[in-house]
């Protein structure tokens, strides 16, 4: 079972305590955006086989949304971090680089 560390309450939460919330760091399209921008925001996803960033909610715990860096090919978790950021923090990126040198995801590397 997937276990993720909640960066808010500090609990190592089982998958059954969590709710998966899809891809992280989506750039929200708003009024006046082009059709392409809306398509990107609403439907287009990285969906990588490898390093991925995603949203999780500690639904049966503290209830907070947080973000996780995880490998979709092996289910390895590189780390979790708070959601109030537009980009993964450096320590998360370093943790990924240690395991997957040369990784990239969207504009992050």
């Amino acid at each position, binding site marked *: 079972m997937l276990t993720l560390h909640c960066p808010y309450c500090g609990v190592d939460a089982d998958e059954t305590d969590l709710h998966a919330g899809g891809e992280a760091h989506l750039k929200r399209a708003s009024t006046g955006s082009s059709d392409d921008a809306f398509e990107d925001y609403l439907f*287009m996803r990285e969906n990588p086989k490898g390093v991925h960033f995603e949203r999780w909610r500690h639904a049966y715990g503290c209830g907070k949304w947080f973000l996780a860096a995880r490998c979709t*090919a092996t289910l390895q978790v590189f780390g979790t971090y708070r959601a109030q950021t537009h980009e993964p923090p450096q320590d998360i990126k370093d943790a990924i680089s240690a395991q997957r040198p040369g990784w990239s995801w969207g504009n992050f590397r």
Partner: protein
Amino acid sequence: MKRYSAFAVAREAMRQHKGWDRAWAKRAPKKKYDVIIVGAGGHGLATAYYLGKNFGITNVAVLEKGWLGGGNTGRNTTIIRSNYLQDPSAAIYEKARSLYETMSQDLNYNVMFSPRGLIMLAQTQHEVRGYQRTAQANALQGVQTEWIGPQRVKELCPIMNISGPRYPVLGGLYQERGGTARHDAVAWGYARACSDMGMDIIQQCEVTGVRQQNGKVVGVDTSQGAIDCDKLGMVVAGHAGVMAKMAGFRLPIESVALQALVSEPIKPCMDVVVMANTVHGYMSQSDKGEMVIGGGTDGFNNYTQRGSFHHIEETVRALVETFPMISRLKMLRQWGGIVDVTGDRSPILSKTPVDGVFVNCGWGTGGFKAIPGSGWAMAELMAKGQSPLTDEFSMYRFREGKFIDESVAAGVAH
């Protein structure tokens, strides 16, 4: 190709079965093909088969990184139905279902199509209204389904508890010509027929790149070297996003694990397929006697072909109220496949931004039933550049807002 028949079985029985041919030839890739199909699952092989049968295009290679039919074609619950709400879906799934009716004769390969009937249970008032609406829509689409009451459900499936207490059976959408087929045989039958037409089926050949010139595809790089082609069909289900990235575009697809399980084999007790959408489970009995059970997807992206055990538990727990007898059954085995899910839960059969590259993906949790129709339509799209069955399933429909909303496509609420 030597035809399979009762006579052939008798003949081979007389000579220690030494006269059987390989079902499909093992060949090394040629330098160039008219068409390369990536993915030797049901959809890919069906595409190749109908390219040859309907359009005479036989200089075709089907490349497979693993083994033939080893992806979702070998990992589903073998259910066949066409009781969809939207017209474009009904058209392609009904085409598929009708092709299943004659597939064994067409391919000279017994795919064990068993139109045993299929019930989608209504266990809430919302479902009653929804399925009555679908029954009306199906009548207009020429898809034979009917709304049946709880007593008729009980007659068709006596092992069912229809009185709840939590989710009483209020009726069901019944498709008499829905059913099951032998999933592996579908892939094997198409492979044999493709090989017989001179097509090359190349296993353990992973595509690693898509070569292009001036925005047009010219070939692929593979683990067995570069191969040229005029047209390329990507039919790789869960890995559609990975292949699209090689070709330089993105798809509105997320890949997640979907699981199924079978029980220990028991004596025949259920001769229909039952889908219970409210409780997230569907069940049928295989010819070997195993209860074949499918449930919902995991919520997160995953390429590992295994899912979370608690989903199995949820699925079985939910079915126990409706099928009390399964509470005493042991699970025999469980498996997972990677399904490619789109925003509107409908597939993508489409041209792409790269000239000569076509994509067939997004079947999500319900691809097996569509195999022949999907192949038929994809072949027409690749041969002629257009097909009435695929017009609505363009990858650009999301940008245009022209969804084909089938959010119950797997018989489970996603």
